């Protein structure tokens, strides 16, 4: 199987704190990969690096898409080196990414995410949240909009159709016109996943999607994650503290502690790994 993502000796520091150190792992295309670890281990930080919100101080992240490899760190803009001043092509490329690069470009590659603290557009309706997610692929010509041309109408209709489809998939059709901020917590979680999917993501990163959900709701969620993979062709990365969910959905688990990968393997391997038991699960 191909790897859609390769992370190679990633390192991040905040002031004196080394949040990530030499983190390396791969994510296989079409898999569900879970990242677990104690609080403050650096899981969210890994996601932030993958999606371009933090710039790693060292290491490489490579995203493989249709035989093309993109380096996230290049998209985020790199400092100029002496060599760039002799090589106009690399200079131009760096300048371009310095000026226009950033996390939105990473998202445009097909990596999207949800957040540990839900970040929906609370004062917009559920369906509007999904329309915003499709912004990139819509007809944005202001004149076309002003004269309501055929192509503009088509583009809007297409977007609404897609949004409705996703609302149906996550079971929120009834809530389409409600404000996102008013929805119960569990619904918000699902809406955020649908929103991330509406960007045509190839890799979706879910940060603690089951937090605040009760037992039954967690079950529904794990169903949804499996369906995302099988029916919608995306690769899923998930951070979660709820072990029942992790064990159920994931193919591969990576365990972080203090910014280091301390274990990796299949759910059964991890469940029985003494290091993980001690550091994370707290079972003797």
């Amino acid at each position, binding site marked *: 199987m191909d790897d859609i993502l390769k992370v190679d000796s990633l390192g991040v520091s905040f002031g004196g704190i080394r949040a990530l150190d030499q983190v390396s792992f791969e994510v296989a295309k079409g898999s569900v990969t879970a990242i677990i670890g104690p609080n403050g281990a650096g899981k*969210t930080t890994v996601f*932030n690096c993958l999606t371009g*919100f*933090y710039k790693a101080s060292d290491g490489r992240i490579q995203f493989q898409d249709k035989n093309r490899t993109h380096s996230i760190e290049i998209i985020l803009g790199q400092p100029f080196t002496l060599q760039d001043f002799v090589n106009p092509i690399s200079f131009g490329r760096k300048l371009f990414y310095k000026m226009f690069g950033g996390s939105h470009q990473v998202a445009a590659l097909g990596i999207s995410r949800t*957040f540990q603290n839900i970040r929906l557009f609370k004062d917009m309706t559920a369906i509007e949240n999904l329309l915003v997610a499709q912004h990139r692929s819509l007809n944005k010509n202001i004149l076309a909009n002003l004269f309501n041309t055929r192509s503009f109408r088509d583009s809007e209709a297409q977007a609404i159709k897609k949004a409705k489809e996703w609302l149906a998939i996550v079971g929120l059709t009834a809530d389409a016109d409600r404000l996102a901020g008013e929805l119960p917590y569990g619904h918000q979680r699902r809406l955020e996943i649908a929103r991330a999917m509406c960007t045509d993501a190839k890799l979706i990163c879910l940060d603690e999607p089951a937090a605040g959900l009760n037992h039954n709701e967690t079950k529904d969620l794990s169903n949804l994650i499996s369906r995302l993979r099988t029916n919608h062709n995306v690769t899923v990365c998930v951070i979660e503290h709820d072990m029942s969910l992790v064990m159920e959905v994931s193919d591969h688990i990576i365990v972080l502690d203090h910014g280091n990968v301390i274990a990796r393997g299949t759910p059964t391997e991890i469940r029985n790994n003494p290091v993980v038991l001690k550091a994370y699960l707290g079972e003797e």
Partner: protein
Amino acid sequence: MDLYTIGQQLINGLVLGSTYGLIAVGYTMVYGIIGMINFAHGEIYMISAYLTAICLAVLTWMGITWIPITILLVLFGTIIFTSIYGFVIERVAYKPLRGSSRLTPLISAIGMSLILQNYVMVSQGARNQAVPTLIEGAITIGSEQHYLRITYVQLGMIVVSFLAMALLTFIIGKTSLGRACRATQQDMMMARLLGINTDNIISSVFVIGSIMAAIAGLLITFNYGSFDFYIGFKAGVKAFTAAVLGGIGSLPGAMLGGIILGMSEGLFSGFVNSDYKDVFAFSLLVVFLIFRPSGLLGRPEVEKV
């Protein structure tokens, strides 16, 4: 250009800067605590200038002319009445708006500042007002021809503004009142849940801000002598600029911002051209904020994703 001229221009800039700093400190105080641009702060300063002159006139009428006593009494009176203004304004125009969108109190503040300006104009008349020159002397260094000079009032202004800033920094940073203020600013609901009477905190912030405005009003009025009901607006904008330049909510920042603003304005007009001094000051601000989007001493808003 000789050294004395350069030195004198530096002093001039510092004096101007300390007037901005004095007002900016009160400004940033309110601003840092309730996160609202209190456009009426400049007007409170303007009121305090009037109160200074009124107190002085009343004292003269009563026959109190010994200068130290006069100054103390004027200061006392100005502070009392100005802080009542601050208190009342907060209760009337801002308290009812608590919890609504950020811009609502901003508009209310603009309305309030129109009210105060015109209220003073209607009751005191539109003409320019002034106080007599109470303290004349100055410190002069140098020869008959070439010298540096700073008047006692100017010196007082610089000293007081630094003292006030230091005192306020201490209050905010080290006392429990200060901690309660910061808590109120960051999460008002949670502050209440921890037992903080946020309404009182906000009122006391306004009162402290007004006291600062009163001190500023007194010193600046004594220094320049002349004022009208319109001075508040300009002072407000400059103080706001200084506060932002220094980093919103940072008291030393406000002082520093004021000094930098005053210095750059003063030096530009002293050595280049006074027509464009404000253009220069604002351009400086813009350029500066591009490179340091959270001001000189303001800590960058880190938002954890």
